[in-house]
């Protein structure tokens, strides 16, 4: 919302500076975005008089002028054809910046064709005041030499632009701004009651309200014999200053009142209206061309204005072309109606029309402003376009003013901590247009004040709203400094177990060389489909109806596609091995408990060359190590999990798997990504990834205390024995480890695989797996015979369970 200082002063009697006004506005919730002061740009320029203009001795087109300026009498060489003795001009001293030329004058006088020039006289274009560049500015009238040019040119009216929050439709009129500034004690509100203009004949246009919910009240009047020429200069200047192009008197008057009073109006060429005006809902077959030249087809939930020809405009949003005013309009019908905010907003959204009327009606126009608005418009039209007004015709009834609010005086201190004097409270409320009802008890003894709310304040609903008005005008600087009372924090946990796991998991991966990424929660649906096993698995409720880009239209089932693409981007930029991870949400469904927190890591490996030894590139077992490190760090022993087959189409079928807890609960995935998946994403493989579903990890068992079990050191040294088994290729090493363990779960404390061998000595289709078994005796050392018993048990268990033979 924009206004100029002089416009504000129509409604605010003040001597406050623009800076004081802007500061006060900002500190009262009218957040000023910009102040454009045309005078600031012209501060170097001042009024000068040409004492004498003589031809230049060496150039026909130049004149040598003797000029009286604020800096004394100067010699200025000027090329303008209109430079002449006795004229009043705008002087730019040496060193001044000329905005229209984007050029700064030299600080020292320059010789032009041999004659020194001590400054410049400017054209309108050079000051960016217009296109006129035929000659220098030639001012008519009585001006003092040295007076600021901005003042002489009438350009000393700063334009303020501020943010109107949606709760304050009254700020969409200059009067509303003036009222708040008056309450802030920056001046006195100037708002005379609107004088009605007496009509001389009955309004010939009938008004029928057929949708009272959408348009409860509609006031109108005809003015005949109007001359719809250009509006007066002051009105045009004000509209131009706030960025509105003047069109004609009738249109400019409606725009002016819209910005002066937050009261939109509409004008019809009465000669083009057919029969009564109706405010009704859209009907089948309605179709009209709007004032913007677009064709609209109103639907039954929209409010339209219609005549016998059908719909001729949207109520409160935009009028139609067929009944619009033009230069030839002589009889004008003025509409001053009230339209329901919600319906106006809906119509505005559906049609995409952005108009000043919509902006005001959807926020809530003062429902009691219809008569004043109409009378103000009548006055302006009569004053500047002549004509003869009809009587005012009003159909329907204005909606009720906001209900009276019971203000509990104690709420002020309760909600703000500020003890405010009741006199001050009453003064603020009255200044803002509220009417607190103080009973005979007196304001100090009355706990609850019934406060009548002005009709232009639809935002005031309760006691807290009154408190806001009081503290807003008093200023938030008055708030006391009160520390929060201490809270019992002894047994409060600040973070949940899941949050702790996220933190730990992130730090483990970062410590192991991974860089943390944050990638979009949405991705292209076809990429999601690649990870879900086809488009059929996509869910409509996870599809974004209005995505920011067509390839960000589905809530991700996994971050892997994002990380793979990111790794590729980095590789394309020349990065070597790329290790990324993200701790973030995935969306198996749209329910409040469906979202899960996934720790996802991805490596695009590269064999690192090193002078001493080649290191094996990052592979599925490196991924498994990182995965185990994460699980161990979040206090979830990986030994509790079993390895299963990969469960998604985007994983390599043989070099990826899952970790399960029990038969069904998948906790993590790891391994190579499927080459086909990577190709579909445009990525060069291989890439290796892990995913840990931190939400799926069962919560640790609650322990009664923090004490750890008593430390029990084994009193005997452990015994280690090696075994090599020949087994079929299909036998998993993990099963052999488990079988060996089972041979004597009490005595055997560890089994590790130290060799896998295929080749000579081992039959085709078989492999040799060598394990080291650790026995931990307690109490007494083991005899050879005792060790032998366990060894035999190991061999028997693996032989039976895996069909293994001991390798000779």
């Amino acid at each position, binding site marked *: 919302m924009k206004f100029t200082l002089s416009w504000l002063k129509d409604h605010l009697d003040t001597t406050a500076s623009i800076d004081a006004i802007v500061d006060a506005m900002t500190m009262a919730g009218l957040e000023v975005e910009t102040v454009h002061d045309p005078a600031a740009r012209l501060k170097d320029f001042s009024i000068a008089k040409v004492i004498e203009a003589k031809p230049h001795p060496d150039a026909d087109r130049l004149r040598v002028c003797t000029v009286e300026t604020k800096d004394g009498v100067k010699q200025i060489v000027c090329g303008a054809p209109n430079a002449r003795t006795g004229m009043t001009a705008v002087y730019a001293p040496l060193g001044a910046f000329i905005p229209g030329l984007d050029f700064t004058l030299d600080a020292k006088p320059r010789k032009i064709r041999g004659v020194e020039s001590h400054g410049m006289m400017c054209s309108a274009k050079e000051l960016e005041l217009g296109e006129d560049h035929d000659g220098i500015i030639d001012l008519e009238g009585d001006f003092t030499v040295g007076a600021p040019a901005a003042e002489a040119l009438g350009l000393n009216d700063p334009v303020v632009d501020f943010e109107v929050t949606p709760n304050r439709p009254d700020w969409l009129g200059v009067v509303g701004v003036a009222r708040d500034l008056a309450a802030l004690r920056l001046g006195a509100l100037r708002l005379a009651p609107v004088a009605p203009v007496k009509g001389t004949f009955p309004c010939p246009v009938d008004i029928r309200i057929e949708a009272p919910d959408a348009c409860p009240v509609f006031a109108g009047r005809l003015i005949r014999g109007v001359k719809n020429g250009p509006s007066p200069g002051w009105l045009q200047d004000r509209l131009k200053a706030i960025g509105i192009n003047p069109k004609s008197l009738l249109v400019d008057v409606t725009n002016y009142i819209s910005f002066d009073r937050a009261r939109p109006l509409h004008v019809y060429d009465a000669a083009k209206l057919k029969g009564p005006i109706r405010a009704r809902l859209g009907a089948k077959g309605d179709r009209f061309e709007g004032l913007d030249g677009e064709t609209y087809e109103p639907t039954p939930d929209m409010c339209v204005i219609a005549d016998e020809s059908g719909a001729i405009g949207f109520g409160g949003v935009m009028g139609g072309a067929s009944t619009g005013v033009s230069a030839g309009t002589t009889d004008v019908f003025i509409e001053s109606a009230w339209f329901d905010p919600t319906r106006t907003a*809906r119509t505005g959204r559906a049609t995409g029309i952005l108009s000043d009327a919509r902006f005001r009606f959807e926020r809530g126009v003062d429902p009691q402003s219809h008569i004043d608005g109409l009378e103000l418009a009548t006055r302006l039209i009569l004053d500047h376009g002549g004509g003869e007004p009809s009587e005012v015709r009003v159909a329907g009834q204005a909606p009720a003013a906001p209900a009276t609010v019971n203000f509990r005086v104690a709420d002020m201190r309760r909600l703000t901590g500020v003890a405010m004097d009741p006199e001050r409270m009453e003064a603020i409320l009255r200044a803002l247009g509220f009417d607190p009802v103080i009973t005979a008890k007196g304001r100090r003894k009355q706990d609850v004040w019934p406060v009548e709310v002005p009709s232009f304040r639809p935002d005031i609903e309760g006691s807290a709203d009154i408190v806001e008005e009081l503290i807003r005008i008093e200023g938030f600087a008055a708030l006391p400094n009160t520390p929060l009372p201490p809270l019992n924090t002894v047994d409060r946990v600040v973070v949940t177990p899941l949050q702790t796991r996220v933190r730990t998991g992130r*730090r483990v991966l970062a410590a192991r060389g*991974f860089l943390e990424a944050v990638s979009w929660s949405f991705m292209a649906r076809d990429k999601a489909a690649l990870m879900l096993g086809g488009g059929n698995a996509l869910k409509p409720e996870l599809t974004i109806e209005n995505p920011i880009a067509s390839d960000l239209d589905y809530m991700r089932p996994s971050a892997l596609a994002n990380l793979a693409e990111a790794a590729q981007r980095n590789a394309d930029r020349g990065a070597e091995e790329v290790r990324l991870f993200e701790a973030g949400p995935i969306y198996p469904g749209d329910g409040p408990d469906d*979202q899960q927190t996934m720790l996802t890591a991805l490596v695009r490996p590269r064999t690192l060359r090193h002078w001493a030894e080649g290191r094996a590139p990052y592979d599925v077992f490196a991924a498994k190590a990182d995965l185990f490190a994460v699980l161990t760090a979040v206090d979830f022993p990986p030994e509790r999990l079993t390895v299963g087959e990969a469960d998604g189409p985007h994983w390599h079928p043989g070099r990826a798997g899952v970790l399960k807890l029990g038969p069904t609960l998948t906790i993590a995935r790891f391994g190579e990504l499927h080459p086909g998946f990577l190709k579909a994403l445009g990525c060069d493989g291989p890439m290796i990834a892990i995913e840990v579903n931190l939400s799926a990890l069962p919560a640790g068992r609650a322990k009664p205390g923090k004490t750890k079990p008593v430390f029990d050191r084994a009193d005997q040294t452990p015994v280690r024995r090696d075994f090599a088994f020949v087994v079929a290729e299909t036998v998993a090493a993990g099963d052999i480890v488990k079988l060996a363990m089972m041979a004597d779960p009490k005595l055997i404390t560890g089994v590790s695989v130290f060799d896998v061998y295929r080749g000579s000595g081992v039959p085709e289709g078989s492999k040799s797996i060598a394990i080291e078994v650790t026995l931990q005796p307690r109490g007494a050392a083991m005899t050879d015979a005792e060790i032998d018993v366990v060894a035999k048990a190991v061999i028997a268990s693996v032989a039976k369970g895996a069909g293994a033979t001991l390798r000779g």
Partner: protein
Amino acid sequence: MPALPDLAPIETSALAAVAAASDEATLEAVRIAELGKKGRVSLLMRELGGMSPEERQTAGPALNGLRDRLAEAISARKAALEANALNARLATEREDLTLPPRPDPIGALHPVMQVFEELAAIFGDMGFAVAEGPDIEDDFHNFTALNFPEGHPAREMHDTFFLRADAKGARKVLRTHTSPVQIRTMVSQKPPIRIIAPGRVYRKDWDATHTPMFHQIEGLVIDCEVHMGHLKTCLTEAFSRFFEVPLAQSRFRPHFFPFTEPSAEMDIRCDRSGGEIRVGEGADWLEILGCGMVHPNVLRTCGVDPDAYQGFAFGLGVDRLAMLKYGMPDLRPYFEADVDWTRHYGFKPWLLPTVTGGLS
């Protein structure tokens, strides 16, 4: 009984042999030849048994002395030979220590996630717990319960992403702010409540200063007597700690949010004169957050009696906060997973923000 021979030449020759031994094997041979079972000195000592006590009185100490001196000389020579051998070996064991070590990549944490943890540390110290809620929200939690009336232009302040309606016709949204967590918390917990809620939020806006996904942190305090003075002091202190400068010059301005009444924005001082923003000093104001007293309608919707309880809420953009503190000039790289950017602006994994140990 033969008389004991003159021991002096024996000692001289034996010590000469010890000194001449150039390796441990030769030295051992000398030891055996003199002090071994059948060694020269050992054999002489055997003679002691056959001597008269008088003879033994002089011969005993003489022989013992000889034996001890020889043993000592051998031991000393042995130590010297060992030291020589070690030095000779070590001389062959030189490495070029300028060669690079085995590579060991170090990762980094994303600045936004680090800032989340910094804020959790600060507010945790003030008694706030960390709460969370879903990104996919229903209209009720994101808008209606927060006092955004259906169809009100206030809803248009948020450019909302909508999800497709499900079979039942219900249409969810991507939460446009973390404020729905206020609702979920008040519905599920009894006051006193003190929480912060960090998370991802979404608005349909993408340009130099906006991304369609960004991060917010929400705060909520509900108690019997918490008022705007508490709000002001709590936030001033928290963000002084966050920026690690005293924000003596912060200010609160009225604003509008549907879910708070009165509502405010907090500005801090900043200096933009040097081309980059410096926080805590300077001539300009910079808005960092929105806040206010929880609207009675919101309390009522959550089943909290607005006559018995009151409190404040605040919310702010974390991405921009991280930019302010750590000087990232641009928001967009936050979401690009660029390894160089992350190494440059990221944080070491062991840099754990704590109130006692410093935040950054």
